[in-house]
């Protein structure tokens, strides 16, 4: 692997949010140690509020770790988003004042890519994402799934080495999620980027990833890793694979107690464990 392959290395990374407005200091994350290989599809599942998004912010360079080291392709992530990192979030980030074409071209224009190249890449991205006939539509005229597709296309055209996804399909219905999962796998194979996906959905993590990390309740630490060994050419039909159920069951096995902890319901957990 070359030096610029989209590798991530975290060593003893923690994040503590300073005390303020009636609360004490909050230990949000860590310590976390992880190596993510270039081109890997890596997912993180964990209970609500466990620090998954904080972890993603640190890897994106949007936030600095309180202690520890975070490297992207061997260079420390320090103050600022590095070149070659793209992100898609749960919230609709499409710009309502731009049509689909201009939304997708937005990042390329800001980076001063020349017009012919922009035209070529946007037109390819639109056809790749099935958006060509909506090129002149505005986001208000599109469904939530289509708008999220626009956001993926907007990142896709930038050809990032590292693609960060924070619950990108969280606001979509189950069937749309499966279809979008397939599209995400195609995008991943096409651009060859490292993908880090944060999700609440164990099925989504199990279906899409090469490796799934399970996080503990806050402060989030990795408590289990599950390697899926799916072929690179997979799609959503692997949910019918006999190993699929085993993977999701293992994820839930690791996650169940942490989810109950994060709900502040440890007593209730003990009660549920009692045989009838």
């Amino acid at each position, binding site marked *: 692997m070359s030096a610029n392959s989209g590798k991530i290395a975290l060593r003893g990374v923690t994040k503590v949010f300073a005390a303020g407005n009636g609360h004490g200091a909050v230990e949000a994350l860590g310590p976390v140690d992880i190596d993510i290989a270039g081109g890997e599809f890596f997912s993180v599942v964990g209970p609500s509020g466990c620090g998954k998004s904080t972890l993603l912010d640190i890897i*994106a360079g*949007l936030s600095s770790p309180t202690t520890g080291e975070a490297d992207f392709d061997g260079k420390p992530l320090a103050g*600022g*988003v590095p*070149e070659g*990192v*793209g*992100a898609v*979030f749960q*919230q*609709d*980030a499409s*710009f*309502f*004042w*731009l*049509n689909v074409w201009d939304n997708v071209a*937005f*990042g390329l224009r*800001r*980076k001063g890519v020349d017009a012919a190249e922009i035209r070529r890449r946007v037109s390819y991205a639109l056809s790749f994402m099935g958006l060509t006939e909506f090129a002149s539509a*505005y*986001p*208000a*005229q599109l469904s939530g799934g289509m708008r999220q597709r626009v956001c993926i296309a907007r990142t896709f055209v930038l050809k990032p080495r590292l693609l960060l996804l924070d619950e990108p399909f969280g606001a979509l219905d189950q069937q749309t999620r499966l279809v979008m999962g397939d599209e995400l796998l195609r995008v991943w194979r096409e651009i060859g980027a490292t993908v880090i996906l944060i999700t609440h959905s164990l099925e989504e993590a199990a279906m899409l990833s090469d490796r799934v990390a399970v996080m503990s309740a806050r402060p989030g630490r990795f408590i289990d890793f599950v390697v899926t060994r799916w072929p690179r050419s997979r799609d959503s039909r692997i949910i019918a694979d006999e190993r699929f159920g085993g993977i999701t069951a293992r994820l839930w096995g690791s996650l169940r107690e942490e989810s109950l902890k994060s709900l502040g319901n440890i007593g209730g957990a003990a009660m549920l464990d009692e045989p009838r």
Partner: protein
Amino acid sequence: MIPRRLDPILLMVAVLALWQGLELIAGPEVVASPAVTIVHAIALVQKSGFWQDAAETGLAFALASVISIAGGLLLGLWLGLHRFAGDVADPILGSLYSIPKITLYPLILLIFGLGMSAKVAFGVIHGVLPIAIFSMNAVRGVPPIHLKTARMLRMSKLSIAITILAPAALPEIVAGIRVGVALTLLGTLIGELFAATTGIGFALIRATDVHDVADILALTLMLFLFAASINSLLHFGERRMRHER
């Protein structure tokens, strides 16, 4: 289903019917009928005196609008970009806005005297606050996800302001200008009603003094048409900017 395009026409028919009904109940010495009013309005616009008054009011309104918009935008955008200042100013602007401005009229008269500057000032105190409040909220209401997207694209502050903040806030700012300009017109006219020697507001008071019902209603009709066209124009622009179906 009746097509929505017919809505304004239906509304106009309803208003005319109500107006005619009012004339029948209250009598022609209180309310002139729509037909009489329209005939009178047509006669009125052929007189040069009307146009002198209209020019006077138009000038005061235009000046007051320009000052309201410029001042409101400057104040509102600055407060929108500075979170702490905005938090402090928000309740203050709100309470100032809720003051019945008419109570400030004696003060305005003492400061500016009778005439153009008092009318403009009275228009401005009506219009500037809603424009400031809307603009502030427009900037503060830009979804944080857009700013996060901008950071991911490593954009400069200036580039963010021009390519994200401005277009995202614009429809709401135009909505503020629409409300502010309507209130500026109200303020300007009130100024003319109470203490002026020229203008449409003054003409209205003069007509009231001599109990010229047709004159009163003709002037009111024309003011209504003027205000409604400005409002529709800005509303149209605002809807275009939101790109909704």
